[in-house]
């Protein structure tokens, strides 16, 4: 099991055909290499570029990245013994069966044929595909195909696993099932997971990194990210409700059409008391990852446009 540190120092990537635009711009971070580290960001934020560099698939333009003290460029060969990756848009090969898919992947990792066959069946059983291991991949549903890919990395002895948007396009049930598999996978391994779904990162990740236009605009546990904001509490009230006086907080219109009050803990309790006295319906919670994401990304976008 990996117990070290994932570290990036001024990691920068400029693609040769990008006219100098930085896909990653001096990204520096340090996270413990266990549990789940999730990278979130909009399309083109640099998530896949960062994952591909860390997974030794792509060379950085400058800066360095190390996993458990091994540099992803000169030590790539040693790192590859410990990592496995499901790239973005990876698909199962239609003319193969789930068992053949996992078995061949294990052979590539140097495991003997018989042992690979046995491990493949075990891994497929762990994701609930024991009865479908000999069907052709082309006959499987989208969610099942993703599970086959998860089974490939699950079956390996890799202790650091990269998953680039593994749940994109899945229906809610399949996504829930995959989350269960990923949670199990993270019990003894380090998962680096990129996602568009903030709920996914909020639910699964120990540490969350927020990328925007190639820059790391936030990183930490959910509580650490909350603490970077001025306001840690959110009250949602119907738009018809007459609001009490908000001294320090921020009143905004939520995407749901409700009125959202972002404020600190003490004022949040004062406002909620006042709303209770009026008999108004409302809800109060700590700010969500969605609030944090929009605050950090919107703020960065606004600063850029100003």
């Amino acid at each position, binding site marked *: 099991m990996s117990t070290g540190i994932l570290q990036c120092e001024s990691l920068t990537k400029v693609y040769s055909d990008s006219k100098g635009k930085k896909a990653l711009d001096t990204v520096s971070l340090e996270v413990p290499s266990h549990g789940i580290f999730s990278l979130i960001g909009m399309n083109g934020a640099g998530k896949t570029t960062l994952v591909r560099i860390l997974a030794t698939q792509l060379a950085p333009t400058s800066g360095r990245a190390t996993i458990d003290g091994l540099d992803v460029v000169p030590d790539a060969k040693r790192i590859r013994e410990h*990592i496995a990756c499901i790239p973005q848009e990876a698909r199962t090969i239609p003319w193969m069966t789930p068992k053949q898919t996992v078995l*061949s992947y294990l052979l590539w990792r140097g495991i003997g044929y018989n042992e690979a066959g046995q491990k493949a069946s075990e891994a497929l059983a762990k994701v609930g595909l024991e009865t479908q291991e000999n069907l052709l991949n082309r006959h499987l549903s989208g969610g099942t195909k993703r599970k086959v890919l998860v089974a490939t990395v699950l079956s390996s002895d890799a202790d650091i696993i990269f998953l680039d948007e593994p749940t994109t396009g899945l229906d809610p049930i399949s996504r829930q099932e995959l989350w269960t598999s990923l949670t199990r996978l993270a019990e003894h391994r380090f998962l680096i997971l990129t996602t568009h779904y903030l709920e996914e990162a909020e639910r699964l990740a120990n540490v969350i990194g927020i990328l925007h236009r190639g820059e790391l605009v936030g990183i930490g546990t959910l509580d650490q990210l909350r603490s970077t904001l001025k306001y840690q509490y959110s009250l949602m009230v119907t738009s018809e409700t007459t609001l009490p006086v908000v001294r320090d907080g921020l009143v905004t219109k939520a995407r749901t059409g409700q009125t959202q009050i972002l404020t600190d803990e003490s004022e949040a309790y004062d406002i909620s008391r006042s709303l209770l006295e009026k008999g108004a319906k409302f809800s109060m919670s700590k700010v969500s990852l969605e609030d944090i994401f929009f605050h950090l990304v919107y703020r960065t976008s606004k600063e850029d446009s100003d």
Partner: protein
Amino acid sequence: MKTWGREVLASVLVNSIYEMKNYPVVLLNTVLSPLSFLIVITFVSKGQLIGEAIEGGFIMSMFQSGMSLQGDLSHLKNDFKLQDMVVSSPTTPSAYVTGMALGEIIYSIPALAVLTILAAIYIQPGLVESLELLAVFLLMFLGSVAMGFTLSTFSSDIVQSFAFSRLISTVFATLPPVYYPITYIPLPFRYAAYLSPTTYAGEIAQSSTGLIQLSVTDVFLAWTILLAVSIALLLVAVNKARWRDV
């Protein structure tokens, strides 16, 4: 070495065995392509060029294997992201490509079996000639595999990649005189034919089995060029192919 063998086996299974096992119809395609030219040339020449056409069939099979490798590797890389998965594993590029290339040869086995039977009937080469032919075909295969792998690592679009693969196959294995002697080509165009390594492979094969007469100097020159091209393509593959993207 044991691990390397397993990695090679994985590539062989993915690139040929599983597809042949699960979709046996794909085998027909690999037989038909080299044999179709052989049949046409044999009929048009009223059987006069059957020896050249059989040797041409071998050369085309070998060359096409490398070019198919380019298309297949691009397909696996761009459509399934397989290369990225394999890069992030202990597998070496040499094991990956060797297995994939062997997979292409396995695909060609039905065509090669038919050609071998025809060669035994119509050419009847001795041991030395057989070894010489084998060396030519092997060089052809290595060169085209090296070229196919290098090109595949640069490709990002499967449609263009397959089109390119067919174009190269036509330019190098169909238009040059591999199915017939170079003397059938009008003189000004012969110089263009000599730009293709398959021309030299065809000349060596035809000369070794007595189908055409070449001077010792010409044979030496043909071997030198064929070897040089194959080594150059291998060196390009080793030094320029992109296992890790830049």
